[in-house]
Structure formats: structure tokens, C-alpha cells
């Protein structure tokens, strides 16, 4: 991957710890749209017992200089506690959750169940004509599963986008 000047692009999974206050997500999203940065996926939820802190995981791509800019721009937002480039900082886990609805009868149902088993997707809803599968994994695994389901009755997909965490003992705060 490269931009139009030929500078190499890279993907980055960035974890951002923010004050859980009104408008904070709009600040982060506005920063990306206003400055023309990509968002491949973005997830957010409170992560502490009191609900004062939220963790945003954003997957983006750009030249090294743009990714450095993104991190610096995020870091200077007033409600941002910590910004961490998990891609750069070392081994980390990335997971996504997807709910996948497949509609069909006969052989297609059997095939759908067989593939789901192979991919460790769970059936969380079933009717005589449909399944909803739940699966977690990285984006590639979910993409692959969806591609296989397409010819056998894939109807609808709902995905969370990536959440990520560093391996080992290190943590975003402290």
C-alpha cells in the first residue's frame, strides 16, 4: 500500500482512553473527518467500574507521518488520557464480534452449520428457515466466514469493529 506520492501506508490499531463525557466520541470522530484521516473501524464502551473512563479502539491507515499526526492530535484533546499505537508497541490481540444471519432451507442449512462448526461460530438464534451465528475473531476470519456464507443464503451482517489489547502484563494506564 502507498499513497499517491508513493509513500508507504500502514495500518494502525490505536487504543484511546478517554473521559466518559458527553461529546467525547464526536470530538474523536470529528478529528478524523475534519483532518481527512481514515477510520476503518471504531469501537467504544466504558471500561471502569464507575463508568468514568471509556476505551476507544480505532483502526486506521496512513503514511507513518499521518499516523504520528493522528496520535498527536488525539493526545491533545482535553478529555483524552492516553493514546497507544498497539500495532507499533508490540504483540497484541485484536478481536471482533459479528452476528451473521443466514436464510435458507435444505442442504444449505446443513452446509451452513458445518461451516459454522469449522469456524467456531455459535448458533444464537434459529428458525426453520434461518440461523443467526455469533462469531469472534479477527477481521480476516469474519470476512472469510461471510464470504463462504454468501452463496448459501447470507442475509445480514452486524459487526462490532475491532477491540484490541496488548499481550502480557503491560496496560494502557499504569
Amino acid at each position, binding site marked *: 500500500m502507498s499513497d499517491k506520492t508513493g509513500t508507504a501506508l500502514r495500518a494502525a490499531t490505536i487504543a484511546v482512553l478517554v473521559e466518559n463525557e458527553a461529546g467525547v466520541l464526536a470530538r474523536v470522530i470529528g478529528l478524523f473527518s475534519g483532518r481527512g484521516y481514515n477510520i476503518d473501524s471504531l469501537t467504544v464502551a466504558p471500561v471502569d467500574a464507575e463508568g468514568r473512563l471509556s476505551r476507544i479502539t480505532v483502526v486506521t491507515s496512513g503514511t507513518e507521518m499521518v499516523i504520528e499526526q493522528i496520535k498527536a492530535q488525539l493526545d*491533545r484533546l*482535553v*478529555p*483524552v*488520557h492516553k493514546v497507544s499505537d498497539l500495532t507499533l508497541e508490540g504483540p497484541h490481540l485484536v478481536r471482533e464480534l459479528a452476528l451473521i444471519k443466514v436464510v435458507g432451507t435444505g442442504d444449505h442449512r446443513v452446509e451452513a452449520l458445518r461451516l459454522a462448526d469449522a469456524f467456531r461460530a455459535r448458533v444464537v438464534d434459529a428458525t426453520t428457515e434461518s440461523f443467526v451465528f455469533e462469531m469472534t475473531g479477527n477481521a480476516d476470519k469474519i470476512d472469510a466466514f461471510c464470504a463462504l456464507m454468501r452463496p448459501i443464503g447470507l442475509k445480514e451482517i452486524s459487526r462490532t469493529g475491532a477491540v484490541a489489547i496488548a499481550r502480557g502484563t503491560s496496560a494502557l494506564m499504569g
Partner: protein
Amino acid sequence: MSATIQHADSTPLTMSGAEVVLRALKDQGVEVIFGYPGGAVLPIYDAIFQQNAIRHILVRHEQAAVHAAEGYARSTGKVGCVLVTSGPGATNAVTGLLDALMDSIPLVCLTGQVPTHLIGNDAFQEADTTGITRPATKHNYLVKRSDDLARVVHEAFHVARSGRPGPVVIDLPKDILINKAPYAEAPPASQPHRSYRPQAEPDMGQVRKAVALLKASKKPVVYAGGGVINAGPEASRLLTEFVHMTGFPCTNTLMGLGAFPSQDKQFIGMLGMHGTYEANLVMHGCDVMLNMGARFDDRVTGKLSHFSPGSKKIHADIDPSSINKNVKVDVPIVGDAARILAAMIQAWKEDTTPQDREALASWWRQIEEWRAKDCLRYVQQGKIIKPQHAVKRLYEITRESGRETYITTEVGQHQMWAAQYFGFEKPNRWMTSGGLGTMGYGLPAAMGVQIAHPDALVIDIAGEASILMNIQEMATLAQYRLPVKVFILNNEYMGMVRQWQELLHGGRYSESYSAALPDFVKLAESFHGVGLRATNADQLDDVIREMLATDRPVIADIAVAKDENCFPMIPSGAAHNEMILGPGQEGGVAGVTDEGKVLV
């Protein structure tokens, strides 16, 4: 008898939200607030009426309130304060807020809001103010709980003035202003904010690395910007000390004028699109560049791929996001300019490596050759007043007067001529809209400066087009007897637009002629001021002298040459060594490519 309600910690609450706001402003040292009333902020206006600690200046348009607060802030180093109503009050303020954001000016702007229970209902004069101002402010708040009110006001001032300064909006629903609210003192400086902790102290390792590079340099330059001004007058003093001890040439950005004295022999003028020949060629040819508090703006760098190709770059900035944004640098230093300069002076003394004095002397010989080009030369002959001459004479005559002088500008050719021909020896004397380029900035900014410095000479160097963008503020000048001088370089064109149309668009002067201009002399008189006019060169000095001697608002309408262009100029898309010089001077005349035409 006023009703009191019990707060959770059983302290009786005696103050309304509006009174809490004013108390917090007072505790933050606010003396003046620029504003315009309206329904949603009536409780604050009522509280203002009943106190004497804070003076309110009634402007005639909310945009002007923000620019006035900017002028106040830039000329004093304090946080400027603005008060406007909800809806149109807030939206009118947006241009000023973005102006302050781009130029890093500390402001706190209080906006009224409809009561909390009506938010989202499309109520009368409702606007999503925090949504609209989010990209136009450093930070903003919507106060939905009375308990948060005092804390938010204190925090807003802290955010506005610390780190890279900027504007902060506090949106105040009317019920929050009317209901009783608890007061809380500002938290002590020792208690840091939960998440916002800008770095002011530089890393000494980086400072020493920078000094080592500078010591080894043969063709150095110091390029200083608005960050030095924002760091306070001490930073300018330290910059001057550092430049003197090193013997380096120093150039200032538009925002940095006054950070280094213009009369100093080591000053090589402003750099950038309309900077001096010598400053731009020094930037192009240097081997080590020290950027102190500037941000490699596109007006300064010209074509990025050709910007100062052979130099090692040191970038000192308080905002880490400014570093490596446009230009990749070799030694970044994050921190406050005054502290970085103090650290660099100390490190320079400690580093025993001798300087290459011979190389520096030869660099200066080269610079003197470039300087000899005298790129700001113009010829004033005949009766038609050259705009450059008008500014030069204004500068010389104000200097002779010995008065403390503050200059503001509007935006366009006159702004660049003011930057080129008016010299500044001290920081905080020059107020101009650099980043956003806001026409209509100068008059209200001058108003704010004059409020802060009642006895000083405050001059708005203006163009006839820009001045009309906030001309209503003449009424504010009259009301508060502010003797601001408006010095209009009247060429009957939006001059910079006309210049670009001449150079880039085949001389097709599309909509850039200032038709149907008012009679500025009568206009001044109708606003209870004094109108003066100079139409030929013989009258110029007399008009300037009379303007300076008049202790009232003055508009001096100076009819200048209509087709004069602002030179030197680096055309868009060109590099520093491809600048266009004025007529009759040699220099690389670069053609403008389509790629360049795309740029503004």
C-alpha cells in the same frame, strides 16, 4: 428576601448560576468582558448590572466581540473574555473563535443556551453550539448541572491559557444560570487535571542535541514564530539573548513579528510568501534551522518538497501535534518557548565545542549580498501615494512621536505592507489575523487593544474592502471614547485578490473592484469620529500627524496607487529560491504551474 435552597453538603446556596459565573470570572482575574446581550444570557447581564468588578464592553456584532477579546489577549498576554447569547449570538462568534484557534489566542467565550429541558427541541434561538464550535475551539463545554458550573469555568481558563493557548466555549443553558449553584474556588496549581497535562518543561537531552547541531553549523538560521510571543515577554528577551550570543541570523514569521527587534542587525526580516529576499534565501540555503515556536505553515514553507532541502531542522513547539506535521524534523523539542530558550542558553554555555566563527562570517557575507538586493525598495515619485510609502511614513512618524504604539490589521495587501514596512521592537505590539486570514479583524481587535491600553496609540492599518466587514464597531469606539485610528490604504480594490487575478488569472478582475464605496470621511463623522483624507503625496505626512494628534476615533482615508502589487512574492507552488521581486529588480521569476494554481 432571596430564597435559599439546601445543597447536599448542607451549605446554603445563595448565589444564582449567573452570579457563580461572574464570581469565577473575577477569581480568574477577568477585568473586561466583550459581549452582546440576548434572551438566553439575560441572567448574566442582570448579574453584571449588579456588580462593579468586571467591566462589560458592548460591541455591535458578536464576531467583533471575539476579535476585540483577541486584541485584548494578544496585547496583554491575558485570557480574553466574551459573552454572547444563544443561536445567532453563538454562530456569529464562530469566525472569531476559529481565528483565535488558528493563531493560538487564549479566550473564554460564554454562550447562552436555551434551558436544558428545551435542548434538542428546535427552541427559539437554539443552536447546537458545542457541535458547531467543536472544530473551532480548543475545547468546549455544555454545562448541564449546576454543581459543575464553577469547576467548568475555572477549568476553561486553565485550558485556554496553558499549553498551546486557544479559545474555549462554555455553553450555559438559561435554567443553569437562574438556578442556585454552589461556588468552588479554582483548584490549586499543584492539583493536575485528570487528563489534560500539557508539557511545558523541555527534555534536556533534546536541548543538548539541538545545541550540538547549532554549534557545528556553518549556515544557521533562527526562525521564530508566535509561540515566542505566547510564551510571554521573557521569551522574547531570551530569544534576543540567544541570537546575540550565537551570532545567528534571525527571521520572524508574520505571527512572530516583535519577538525579535526589527532594528537589530541580526534581523533579516519576515520570511514566507511576502517575506524578504534574504530571509527566504537564508531559509533555503541554511544547513541548520532552529524553528522556535512556529509551525511550518504553508505560507512560510512554499513548495514543501523544495523547502530548505539541505538543512537539519530543530523544531521547538509546545504542541506535539505541530511537530512532523508538514515538515519532517531532526530534533523535536516539546515545551514552552521561554523555558526551551532558557535551557538552550544554559546548554550553549555548557557545551565547550567552539563555533565555526569563520564559516558564520562567510555566511553573513552571503546574507549581506542578498540584503543588498534591497527587496523592499519602491519608488515614490509624483503625486500618487505608494501604499508602501504610506505605511513607511506612518511607521516613521509614530516612531518620532515616541508613543507606545500597537498595530492591528485587516487582511490583504495592506496587511503584508504593514508587516514589511512597520517595524516592531517589542512583542505584543502587532495584532493580525495570520492563520485564518479574517477580513474585518483589525478594527474590533484595535478596540480590544485600546481598552487594555487606554493611553497607547492604537492603529488599525486597513484596506477599504476589509474595513467594511466590521465597520459597525465605529459605534463602539464612540460609545467608549476609544481613540483608535483607522488608517485605510484605499486602492479601490480587494488588492490581494486583484493581485492574484493579475498574476494567475490573466488579469480578469472578477468581482474584486470595490464599487460604491462610502465617503469614509463622512462615515467617520456620522459615527462621531474624525475623518481625514489624503489624495496626494504632499498631504500624507500632515494627515498622519493630524491623525496622531486627534484624541478621538479617526478614519484616515489614504488614496493609494490602485495597481500596486505586494512584492517580494513566492508564487503558490514555488520554492523559496523562486521568488518574484518587484518591477525593475532581477530575481527568479517563476511561472505558476497548475499544481500551484490549486493552492490558495
